[in-house]
């Protein structure tokens, strides 16, 4: 039995501890905001926070998350008013939107540890998150906006 705090709520898990957190939150908890993109940790669509730091939930097992605190896109802000979310809407970042939860969680994690990242630091932090629609220019702009205060 593992105990994980997910979006502030303590959850008990008794299944295979090797199950990736991604499938636990999606299939067991019905928290579908976290997306499956590659299953290999190379696209970032499934990014969540583990104790406040961005991780790939397809590469993080439930066992590894035991005793820790997980935040998914649903838990980033109760009303969707996190500065990154606000900046995203102000810049009209998304196209199809599928990768955006992962992008937003990655960006929020970056800004939590670095309040005014340089362009190079933004690129470095975000390069693991693929957007096939090609919203990178606006993602970059939105992160700068969020850092400067929305």
């Amino acid at each position, binding site marked *: 039995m593992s105990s994980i705090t997910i979006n502030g709520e303590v959850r008990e898990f008794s*299944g*295979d501890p090797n*199950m*990736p957190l991604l*499938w636990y939150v*999606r*299939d*067991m908890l*019905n*928290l*579908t*905001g*976290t*997306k*499956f*993109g*590659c*299953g*290999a940790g*190379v*696209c970032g*669509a499934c990014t969540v926070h583990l104790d406040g730091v961005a991780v790939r939930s397809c590469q993080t097992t439930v066992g590894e998350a035991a005793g820790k605190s997980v935040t*998914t*896109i*649903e838990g*980033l*802000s109760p009303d*969707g008013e996190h500065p990154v*979310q606000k900046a*995203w*809407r102000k810049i*009209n970042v*998304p*196209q*199809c*939107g*599928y*990768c*955006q*939860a992962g992008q*937003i969680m990655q960006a929020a994690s970056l800004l939590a540890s670095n309040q005014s990242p340089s362009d190079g630091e*933004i*690129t*470095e932090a*975000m*390069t*693991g*998150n*693929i*957007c*096939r*629609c*090609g*919203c*990178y*220019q*606006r*993602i*970059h702009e939105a992160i700068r906006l969020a850092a400067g205060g929305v």
Partner: protein
Amino acid sequence: MLHYLKNEIDAGTEPKINVEISSVSRRGILGGLLAGTGLVLAARFTPAGAAEHLKPYPTAGLSMPSGVVSDPHIFIAIEPDGALTIVTHRSEMGTGIRTSLPMVVADEMGADWSRVKLVQAPGDEPKYGNQDTDGSRSMRHFIQPMRQCGAAMRQMLEMAAAAKWNVDVSLCHARNHEVALLDKNKKETGKVFSFGELAEAAMTVPVPAPETILYKSPSEFTYMGKGEVQMADLHNITTGKATYGADVRLPNMKYAVIARPAVVSGKIKSYDASAALKVPGVEAVHEIEGVFSVPRKFHQLGGIAVVANSTYAAMQGRDALTIEWDNGPNASYDTDAYTAELSATAAKPGKVIRNQGDPDAAFAKAKDVVTAEYHGRHIAQAPMEPLVAIARIVDGKAEVWSSVQSPYGARKDIADALKMPIEDVTVHVTLLGGGFGRKSKWDFMLETALLSQKMGGAPVLLQWTREDDIQHAFYHTTSVERIEVALDEAGKVSGWRHRTVAPSIVSTFKQDDGYQFPIEYGMGFVDMPFDIPNVRCENGQAMAHTRIGWYRSVANIPRAFAVQSMVAEVAAKLGRDPKDFLLEMIGPDREIDPKKAGFPEEFWNYGEPYEQFPINTARLKNVVRVAAEKAGWGKKLPARQGLGIAAHRSFASYVASVVHVAIDDDGTIRVPHVTSAIDCGFHVNPERIRSQMEGAAVMGMSNALYSGITFKNGAVEQSNFTDYEVARMSNFPQKVSVHIIEADWAVHAGGVGEPGVPPFAPALANAIFAATGKRLRNMPMGEKIA
């Protein structure tokens, strides 16, 4: 694309503009605008807010199954409290169409967008008109019916108000979700009825005949052309609440994945599921029979499905399967050998598709001939959302949820596969996490429906993994485009010979003969717009050994790469400025006469009637000039930097792009700036046009530098974003400046989703040449240059 395909494959007997409109009218529904062609009726009244009769023009939308529908009763519902529901019947995969078309309806109605609720239509083309969302057609085909729908609804509201006030309708003016009463001087009296108050009465007013409908003039537009309406799903996307294909939850839903043959047409010889069934959480294993008859169309490949209580358990169960395959007739498909074959074929004469003048004589007399071959690899669409569908069958009725581009085509095939009448099958459309053509092909939905049927109708979510997506796509073709250019004594281009050799999309739909078909010929090959007296376009034979499908921009990708690279190569040979030479090649302002230019009889113009959507060289030259000027063409750049330009007409729109390249010390090809000009005619949502053009540059960069699918022993060699690479933030076109050519209603709306992609790769290759003197002719070119 789909219905075009059907028309092209069945070509010969059917009239191009068919009887869909009259059949729609018989059902009491307002048909398309064609019904009003040529009728000029005096306005009986002129409401203050709606000043224009619009002359309808035919589009290919009319010749599609179910045509177009514009009946307000189908698309609009108004509640007594004024809440306005607008049905959106095209699939949203990132273009913003789910917002843009309803916005057109709301604007023509005089409605307040903040009170609009959108409802996504299920797959039901007889009711909504065509729903096949690809080919950059949504705006091109539905701008007229949606304006008509909204304007008709406005007049119905005004007529209902006129009846209540007992005044002439010319004194009633809809705006801001109300109808205002006007005095004789057309000034507002202060009396109003809200749309909610009028709703019930308005819905009983007969729908006005098309020729009596008055439209807003552009100065009266509230939303169209402003770019101020945000995407309807924006807030939900940023909070994780938006619903994509895998996000629908049904009670007792199971999760499944399928093991499929590595080689197309491979069959299962035997399998052992005993280890899979021992995996905790795995509940069942079912064989899904493949369809092996030709043509394969979108039928499932076949394989072994593992059903479990989580996606993770299903994947583990799949890993534990033991399957012996018979790889079948495509087991020798090998990219290296095949490419050599394509190249050899391109060196020999092929089937003549276009002939103008006497190219043989021109080449015989030429002082010089420039020859080059341009290669392209297969590409997998790889939308960020891998394919997924959910199905269940309850009391003999099947329901399927999916992120699909063609919900009605899918519904028909699902009904056939399940042996059920189509009325008993419902296809719900979620948001699409990208599509790029892959989600026009519904093999994954057939698998899901068949699996649910095998499970006694139990609800099941079938998830494709990224590996499945990359290894079982309907691939963008692999191609050799060979172009020879004859130069005469005066250094003028006197002849053009273009050979295309590539396995064809049509192989998916009919017995393959190795030749392409008019849709592919029409994408930048026979429609080459240059003012050259002697032209020949030939197609060499290339048999398909995998499933060939379409990918955003389709055959325009290799054609624009070849043609626009060749223009710059000849310019370099002649010592000319590439932009000036491109303009000279396009030649005088004109609408190209397909007959005089030797186009084939069955020339395919994106399905559109040519006289309505002709190839207009003035528009093409204009985007070249605008892009060049805005990019500062001719400016001095540091060493290892350069500008390249390319222009291409596709999907009835014109795009030119200037790519600024800067080569890093380590040879990495970087793109600090792209300047694009697009002329897509009349347009309503410039903000989303910009986002499409920005995205097109990024996808263009993926195509140009990174993405290539190769085959060995019949199987795809790549498996995930590790070896099938796409542009990331570490190297992407950092700034894309988009210039949209203003156009009034008279310039018919063209496509937007696809036309931005084709010019990028050649503009990049031309910029690399300007920066380094090296000419790259094989896509993907790789990230670094020596």
